[in-house]
């Protein structure tokens, strides 16, 4: 009798267990169906939105920069008329930290204009991982693979004129640790970045309230190197120079905007022209490069592309409204850190 009761209890439990399993399977199936429908709907919705496709090489290296700047300008232009946009990075195979910062900067500009944005990540693994690791998704919704969350990389966005340099403070010891193995301060570099921020406030924008800049810091642990990119979406240095009454005389001497800017960084405007020229912090930034505190310094502003390593000082056909800096600190640089 007792055994019979135990059998009944066993059968009952077993039936309940089976029921639970069935329910779980059903729920899982339902969930998967829901996700599939979601994906289908997303694809359908994205097809309907105005789309903008990134070039395969989303990098601001000379030779690729014009195509990227065209993409950025097109994005800005579409943002003036559209309320929703789909940014397609599907075909990207190569992605640079600087271009990510520039893209984020434009996305921020569009978001402030209430443009709703959706997008597709690169299908290429290398490019997708680089994007996920960059810090881009701190500001954008999107899945980041767990292994890409373990990174010191960061993109810092500053909101207004009163945003202090203090936010950058913890990033210097992290960078020095990656390059030199010591989490030290680097006052000369920190001050140089301060000059860039100051320029963004002083010269980049007509309306001080709208100041936004992005500083990207990417750590290459194996190479013991750190890449920095800085971008503001202001009017750009050359365009601001046009407001200076001496600019025409300066331009007459140097002939091209690229030569004017090259000399402005190298502190040669006053010495070569005899004309009073306000430094605007540019020589201080160049000094970092000259003193080998940084390497690979690149500047893009308006129609000028300067690559100090490659000695490329050229005018480009596709202008960028704003100022972009890229540089690297690696073991070929002068160790300049303090505990």
């Amino acid at each position, binding site marked *: 009798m007792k055994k019979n009761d135990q059998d009944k209890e066993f059968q009952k439990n077993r039936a309940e267990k089976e029921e639970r399993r069935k329910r779980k399977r059903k729920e899982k199936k339902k969930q998967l169906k829901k996700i599939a429908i979601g994906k289908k709907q997303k694809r359908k919705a994205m097809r309907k939105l105005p789309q903008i496709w990134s070039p395969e090489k989303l990098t601001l290296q000379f030779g690729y920069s014009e195509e990227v700047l065209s993409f950025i300008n097109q994005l800005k232009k579409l943002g003036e008329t559209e309320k929703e946009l789909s940014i397609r990075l599907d075909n990207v195979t190569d992605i640079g930290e600087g271009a990510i910062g520039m893209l984020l900067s434009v996305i921020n500009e569009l978001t402030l204009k209430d443009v709703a944005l959706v997008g597709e990540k690169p299908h290429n693994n290398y490019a997708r991982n680089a994007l996920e690791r960059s810090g881009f998704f701190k500001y954008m919704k999107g899945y980041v693979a767990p292994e890409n969350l373990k990174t010191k990389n960061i993109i810092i966005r500053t909101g207004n004129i009163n945003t202090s340099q203090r936010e950058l403070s913890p990033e210097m010891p992290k960078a020095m640790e990656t390059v030199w193995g010591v989490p030290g301060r680097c006052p000369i570099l920190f001050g140089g970045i301060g000059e860039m921020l100051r320029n963004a406030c002083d010269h980049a924008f007509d309306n001080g309230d709208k100041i936004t800049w992005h500083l990207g810091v990417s750590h290459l642990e194996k190479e013991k190197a750190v890449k920095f990119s800085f971008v503001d979406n202001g009017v750009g240095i050359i365009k601001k120079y046009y407001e200076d009454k001496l600019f025409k005389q300066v331009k007459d001497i140097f002939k091209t905007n690229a030569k004017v800017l090259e000399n402005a960084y190298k502190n040669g405007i006053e010495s070569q022209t005899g004309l009073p020229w306000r430094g605007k912090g540019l020589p*201080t930034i160049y000094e970092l490069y000259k003193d080998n505190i940084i390497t690979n310094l690149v500047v893009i502003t308006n129609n000028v592309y300067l690559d100090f390593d490659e000695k490329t000082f050229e005018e480009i056909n596709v202008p960028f409204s704003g100022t972009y800096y890229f540089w690297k600190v690696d073991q070929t640089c002068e160790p300049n850190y303090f505990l």
Partner: protein
Amino acid sequence: MIVIDIPRDFTRTPGWRTYDDGPYSGQEFFDKLLKDGFANAKKEGVKLKVILDGSDGYTTSFLNEAFRLLGKEFGKDFVWDNLIIVSNEVPKYIERIKKGVYELEKK
């Protein structure tokens, strides 16, 4: 000798030029510490020692504004003759301060 140690007495993270530029500007440093420090040193007949080392880093505009105002207030040569700047970490800052005192770098 009177000593102002900027990272200890003011901030480790100095800002930019004026109050309008945000916190810990060169103007704020001049108003809160530098002006009185120099005035006291002058009264006591001693030099003013300003220690820059130990900070996160200085912008040209911070240094220029603080010491430009000092030169304007107390006289350029007198200020330069009675200042001791300690900047072992970034010796270049001394030249930038001199430019500020003598107003060689315009605002």
